[in-house]
């Protein structure tokens, strides 16, 4: 049916991953950092699904895997935000580069 080669999906996933990584490593706002991490995880999902459809040995497990990933990503986000809130209560900021009381 569709003739989009798997390499395209993989490239897309890779690009997304890199964007996510870039965001996670550069954004100053904690929320955006968390979102970027979500992005990275989702890029993985694209990989998995692509493989499970167009991989050399297609199998359903990839999609199952991606479901698990989504769920866990959600959990991660939730916990992350909860901790962020706890931090915000004490620190009154979500600015990531102010979180450096411990160093060296």
């Amino acid at each position, binding site marked *: 049916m569709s003739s989009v080669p798997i390499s395209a999906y993989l490239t897309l996933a890779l690009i997304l991953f890199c964007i996510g*990584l870039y965001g996670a490593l550069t954004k100053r706002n904690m929320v955006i950092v968390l979102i970027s991490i979500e992005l990275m995880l989702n890029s993985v999902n694209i990989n998995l699904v692509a493989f499970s459809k167009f991989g050399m040995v297609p199998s359903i497990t990839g999609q199952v895997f991606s479901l698990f990933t989504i769920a866990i990503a959600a959990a991660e986000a939730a916990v992350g935000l909860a901790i962020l809130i706890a931090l915000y209560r004490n620190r009154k900021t979500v600015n*990531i580069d102010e*979180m*450096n009381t*411990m*160093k060296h």
Partner: protein
Amino acid sequence: MENAWIIPLFPLLSFLFLLLFGKRLKETSAYIGMLFTLLSFIYSLVVLFDRFSNPTYKAEATWLTIGDVQLTAGFEINQLNALMLVIVSLVSFLVHTYSKGYMHGDDRFHVFYAYLGLFTFAMLGLVISPNLLQTYIFWELVGAGSFLLIGFYFYKEEAKAAAKKAFIMTRIGDVGLLIGMILLFWQVGSFEYDEIFQAVEAGSVSAGMVTLTAILIFVGAVGKSGQFPLHTWLPDAMEGPTPVSALIHAATMVAAGVYLVAALFPLFTASETALMVVAIIGAVTAIFAASIGLVQKDIKRVLAYSTVSQLGYMMLALGSAGYVAGVFHLMTHAFFKALLFLAAGSVIHAVHTQNIEEMGGLWKKLRITGPLFLIGTLAISGVPLFSGFFSKDEILIAAWAHGNTVLFWLAVIAAFFTAFYMFRLFFMVFSGNARSEMKNVHESPSVMTFPMIVLGILAVVAGYVNTPWFGTFLGDWLVDGNEALGHGHIEGPAWIMIVATVVSLLGIFLAWMMYGKRSISRDWLSSRMPIVYGILYNKYYIDEFYQLSVVNATKFFSYLFHYIEKFLVEGIVKGITGVVQGLGRIGSKIQSGQIQGYGAMAFVGLALLLVIFAITGGYLK
């Protein structure tokens, strides 16, 4: 003779005994010392007479095993040893006796006797050693003993310095001896004298090696016998109590060097060069020391330099293949020089000064010491019919016969000097009129005079055991059964005897002119040729020279090493620790506390690995 080994043990016992109980015994410890030394003297006499009739005796036991080599310890009684035993034990006994009076009242009296015992033990042990190793062992012990005795007045800075100097200077020589004997060992495979001699005769030791080892061993002798250039310790050693000087620096320790050369005579005769070296050093020392003796002001120092020069004579004799002459002079010198020292001691004991310029006119006061001192002086000056005359004559003949003409004349001049400064000494001390501050001067007690008298007699008669007129008994006996030692008596032209006599009489006459009759002013030399006088008075500046060269060189090395240690070694260590610390600093700097920095670091790491992987072509190697 079989148990001659006991002879050295007597003094050792006295040493140990006094070490343990001396403190309680106080001055009675003198009797202990005297008793034990007397015993060893008597037994040595027995051994000596035994030796006349019986052949050389030797007994040994294994001392230490190295691999398959057995190092032995034991004793040997040959002519030389037997003779030395008697001389040493006799002088030691007399000194023990003398010291009872001289050291009276010293609160470390017993220590002094303990030390005397130790020293006597070492010296006796030295003379009966049958092999080089044992000789070396006692050789060192002798050094240690003399070190202790010289430094007996430990609270005097000079005594401390003198003791240190004596030990170190002799040790320098000893190292020569050590090297020499070890080299010999690797050539011969044994330290035994007779095996060494056999090997040398058999020619299994290369000529060069013989010369080398002989000279190295001679270096040891130079150190002990205060030969030039290692003589400087001997005059300083006069800081010790005077009886010590009599024992160590007349009869025994300083003679050990001569004894060693004599004992190894076959080795030396095997190498003409070695003999030459011995002769030259001897002659040089003789004239050199005598010249210094001309101007010294300290009674004991004068005697010390005369000792040095006399030892030079002996070396000259041995170097000129005059085995008998050397040993003969060793014997006579032992007696008259011991006498002189004891007499000097008695003088000092009386006037409490050593500076001869503060003395004078003691002849009337010291009725016994005076004549005895005169006897000694005559003997050493080589005045006919006194013992010194015969032995010195033998030496001159030997030197001449061996063809060392130059050395011969040197020796003659030295003889002149000797006569001069010895009588200078005599006149300055005894002649003239007494000083005012020496009113209450009185003769020493009999315990001190008795030994002097004994020595005085010997100083006269000892010569007659070996004379051209009444037969050379000693010589023949010494060399009997061992042609390697040369002949008992070397025939020489008769005029030599005349020359010697004339020379010594000239010296005496000149001394009388200057110091007795005062017809020539005393400061003739110092006023006419101050430079010469200065050089002589300062002993040719040898000490200063050593200070400048050797000591400073040592300092240089020490500080060099010191700085190497401080900067190089420590520096490297500091460098390494610094690097580690630095790494730590960098590491903790990177740990900036920025979350994203950490993630970035991880990513960088990943990227790095991937890049390396890609560059190296990954697994496709």
